[in-house]
């Protein structure tokens, strides 16, 4: 089995599963309970928060555990919008944000917020000048993703952060779900106010994630109820999930230190191999993209057919993001980058992990070449 759909979800690391298992058995009580058993669970929760903060180089009080990336993005966007709506009702995002940012903002439009959707260039990148030019007196939030989930394009977060810093009335949110552990990001130094991370994209478990919220920022809660997570996120803490998330974060950070070059080399090998196939057009830019994602189109071929043909050989890739895979039309992301409908409708995505090997990449390249050759007569 060759699994090349790591942007959809990753296989939990055995150590992560072990953490989950151990905490489930050993620390079941509710951290909010005041008895000693609850106290032990609470101590563990605090320690986990401290470790997560250390890995992100932020303060412990700035970490909010969530049920995943979608909740994190919604909490950040709706939380800021509803809390600070007296200040202004203008929000800036890009055309290529994940649906959990894009549609959260669309829902705010119904509440009278105005959203600026920044265009991207052919590499899928927003322009810093556009960001600056669209800031208004009533802008309260800029939300730009770190690494695009379909193309791997890296956005100029550091530069946007330094612009955002000059406007003290607005907040800067970064959806770092696809980039964490693969592409460097400095929350503190780059002026990021809120940052979303999801566990299952980094070999953690589904249903885990965190939102970084800079100290002093208030968030209107998505869920009302108990006072958990500094009053920012009600509900009994999923302690086994939380501990397993922190474990996954630590492990991927270690891989980032040790295996970045390897992943980079795999990305290059993949690009070279795809480049040689004349029917293939690569959509992920050569420069300024994450090493693990490669988006390409095979014009004239239905992507589902290629996916199926590869699946027969136990190789798993995807079309676009899993969250929008039910949409039969083209990719919003690729269309925003100016791709024709033909290219956008025939796009495929390979997404690797640190465990991907060069043999797997080569096997994939052979398989897709064969598939294209064999399907050619059927499809055309």
């Amino acid at each position, binding site marked *: 089995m060759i699994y090349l*759909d790591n942007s*959809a*979800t990753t*296989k*939990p690391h*055995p150590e*992560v*599963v072990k953490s*989950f*298992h151990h905490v*489930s*058995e050993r620390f*079941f*009580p*509710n951290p*909010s*309970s*005041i*008895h*000693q*058993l609850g106290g032990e669970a609470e101590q563990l929760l605090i320690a986990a928060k401290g470790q997560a903060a250390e890995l992100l180089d932020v303060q412990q009080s700035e970490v909010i555990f969530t*049920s*995943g*990336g*979608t*909740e994190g993005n*919604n909490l950040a966007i709706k939380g800021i919008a509803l809390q600070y709506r007296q200040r202004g009702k203008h929000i800036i995002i890009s055309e290529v944000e994940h*649906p*959990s940012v894009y*549609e*959260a903002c669309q*829902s705010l439009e119904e509440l009278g917020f105005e959203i600026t959707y920044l265009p991207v260039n052919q590499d899928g990148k927003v322009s810093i000048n556009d960001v600056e030019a669209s800031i208004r007196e009533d802008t309260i939030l800029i939300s730009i993703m770190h690494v695009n989930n379909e193309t791997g394009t890296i956005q100029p977060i550091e530069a946007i952060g330094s612009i955002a810093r000059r406007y003290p009335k607005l907040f800067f949110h970064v959806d770092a779900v696809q980039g964490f552990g693969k592409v460097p990001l400095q929350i503190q130094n780059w002026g990021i106010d809120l940052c979303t991370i*999801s566990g299952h994209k980094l070999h953690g*478990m*589904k*249903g*885990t994630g965190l939102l970084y919220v800079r100290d002093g920022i208030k968030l209107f809660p*998505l*869920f*009302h*109820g*108990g006072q*958990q997570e500094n009053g920012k996120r*009600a*509900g*009994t*803490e*999923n*302690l*086994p*999930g939380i501990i397993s998330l922190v474990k996954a974060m630590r492990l991927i950070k270690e891989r980032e230190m040790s295996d970045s070059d390897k992943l980079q080399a795999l990305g290059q090998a993949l690009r070279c191999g795809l480049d040689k196939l004349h029917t293939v057009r690569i959509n992920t830019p050569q420069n300024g993209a994450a090493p693990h994602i490669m988006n390409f189109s095979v014009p004239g071929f239905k992507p*589902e057919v290629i*996916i199926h043909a590869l699946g027969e050989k136990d190789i*798993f890739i*995807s079309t676009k993001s*899993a*969250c*929008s*895979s*039910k949409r039969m039309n083209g990719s919003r992301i690729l269309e925003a980058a100016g791709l024709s409908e033909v290219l956008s409708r025939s796009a495929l995505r390979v997404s690797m992990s640190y465990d991907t090997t060069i043999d797997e990449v080569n096997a994939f390249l052979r398989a897709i070449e064969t598939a294209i050759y064999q399907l050619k007569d059927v499809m055309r």
Partner: protein
Amino acid sequence: METIYLDHAATTPIDPAVIEAMLPLMSDVFGNPSSVHSYGRKARQSLDEARRTIAQRIHAHEKEVTFTSGGTEADNLALIGTALANKDRGKHIITTVQEHHATLHTAEYLEREGFEVTYLPVDENGVIKVEDVREALTAETILVSVMYVNNETGTIQPIQEIGDLLKEHQAYFHTDAVQAFGLLEIDVKKMGIDLLTATAHKINGPKGIGLLYAGKHVKLQPLAYGGEQERKRRPGTENVANVVGFQKAVELRTNKEAEYRNLYQAYKELFIQTLQEEGIAFEVNGKLENTIPSIINISFPHMNVESLLVNFDLNGVAASSGSACTAGSIEPSHVLVAMYGANNERTKNAVRFSFGSANTKENVKEAAERVAGIVKRMMKNR
């Protein structure tokens, strides 16, 4: 000294069989259910099967079950989701003064958003009157939210009767069944329930997973936006392992509700009997016959809840003052205040003991003996 856990209403130990059921979803079947390849499809199958199994337990259709991150999220989705989606039909909501904070604080938020909320009182037994619901209903009422079993006193509310009453009214009927699910039989169709909240970690399942049942006819606006998961009612990659763990926890209790009730009832009676034999003064809050077997709320006259809990804890009895979600600060319980009034001594000397899988007859008796011993000592030192 071994600590005896009497706080199952706060959370329960996860059953080893539940963990076992979850592990394959973290190794072999780890795919994203939305992925079109076979890894995704296998995960989707697990998800669908779990949804069917759990839906059957409450006599719902599988399409009517939305998985959430837990009870709090489900309560929020039920209230905010129906209020915002149905405000063209009216802006009046009825709930009770003794709901869980996930419901109460959400209702308060909706008040700030321009909805009108009626908070029904409870009698001294902690039960709401169906008659009060009838009187509070107006042509503008769009939602009635009444918890099935109160989490502090264990009092069972007249859900069937409210459901019957509302069959003739436009208002949806939501019940927070977090403490009832898995112990009391629930038939949403027969009981006229339109929305129902349940959570896995109260029935020996994993934390971080719950559900909202919402009948096909219910108009619901999501809390969060993004992917198309859960029929767009709850976007985000489905937590398949937790859902399967939830399924296992439900299966372990399937057709065993009566068995569990009898067992926990025996624990409860043994606990009371032991306290009586020890000759200490205590009063049961709520009408014993009308409480769920797993929960008992007891006041100890002349005592103070904080020192009681501290001493119980030091002597290896883990109990609580009320809901864990509010336990951080021991304010007088809003539930007991609703029953007895703010100045009643019972609101300041009540402890909740809740029974479950960590108990045996022996440790329940032992816990009661420890409790009695502590109370006697504290009485003497008063």
